[in-house]
């Protein structure tokens, strides 16, 4: 028989990001939602806001996150809240939780991209030097002749 709600998780709140921005300006509130099993319809019934996340880097190239650790501890420990992956990553970076596995993978990918960029830059620089040196040699040869 089809069950309307999963008894194991019924009434289990979930912590996630709620988009509170406007056009071309994303801004997230880190919120506690009632129960994922109730469906997306009930995502608007936010139980509590436990933080904010500004995904656009500011002038110092920082993405600002604020978290209410006391309330988060309550929702995680006492209420056994489910936490979405993006929030888990933020919690890992903030130090409340260990670093999330996805963060490791992403960081490695980013490092590789940076390495590739650096290598490309070095290669381009060396090519330029070669091109500059080559015409000088040609000129000296022409003078000798």
């Amino acid at each position, binding site marked *: 028989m089809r069950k309307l709600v999963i008894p194991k998780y019924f009434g289990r709140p979930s912590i996630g990001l709620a988009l509170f921005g406007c056009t071309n300006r994303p801004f997230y509130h880190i919120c506690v939602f009632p129960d994922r099993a109730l469906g997306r319809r009930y995502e608007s019934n936010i139980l509590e806001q436990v933080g904010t996340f500004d995904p656009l880097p500011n002038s110092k190239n920082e993405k600002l996150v604020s978290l209410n650790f006391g309330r988060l501890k309550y929702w*995680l*420990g006492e209420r*056994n809240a489910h936490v979405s992956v993006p929030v888990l990553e933020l919690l890992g970076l903030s130090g409340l*939780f260990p670093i999330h*596995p*996805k963060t490791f993978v992403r960081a490695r990918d980013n490092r590789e991209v940076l390495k590739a960029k650096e290598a490309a830059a070095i290669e381009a620089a060396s090519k330029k030097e070669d091109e500059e040196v080559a015409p000088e040699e040609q000129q000296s040869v022409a003078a000798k002749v």
Partner: protein
Amino acid sequence: MLSAYQRLNVAAATSSASLLTSACTSSAQQQQRGLGRRMPKQGKPPILPPAKKVLYHVVHVPWQKPEDVKELLWRRHVYNNAVTSLREVFRAELQQNAAIGKGIESMKEAEEKELEELISENERRNKEKAAARAAREEAASRETKLTMLNEIEETLLKQKEAKRKSEQEVQAAIERSAHFVTKDNLETKVLAALENPVVYDFAIDKMGNKFPNPMPVKYQEGTPTRQKGRLYDETLGSKITATVIENTAEKSESSETERANV
């Protein structure tokens, strides 16, 4: 043979009276049964089959590197274990805090206490400010009263002065009205005017001496000449004319006063 729809209509007509009576009373019940005035739910009618787009929708999981998958497997395992134990740690921490007296209940009490303190402080300040405001307002009202009284005094003085002036004017007018021409004294005034004609046909010098030429006469005899003669031949201020002048000057003055009164 009746169709199902017609039969339904008939049934509705027969039961309409009972429905009407119970319509007002059981609005809550109606809402419970979904018969109230509410918007229909958005989406597909439940009787229709699922759309092909939904039915044959395949979730394409983004491709991951095999080494990443391998790493994520053990990392996730470790991570989940850590999170589970951390949850326990948090729960224990909360319980400990509650036992010590740093829990939510004690926080609530402390906050209530603080709120009460703040309210009492606010009331105290409000009272202080109210007293200060009352004193300030009293002083201001006194000042305003004084200025208003001064203004009233000034206005009254002005009105008194205006009244005095206008009374004077009226008195003067009344005095002047003795010489006025009215219907009663019209005849006498006309006769008086005829008796004392005023002639402005004269020359005048800087001293104010008037030199009429020809000499004015009270009663014109004969036809008055158009040409008054060779005026430029006359030497003004000669003896004969001077005597005449004095008389005429007196006469003219009296006549002028009369005119002014009129």
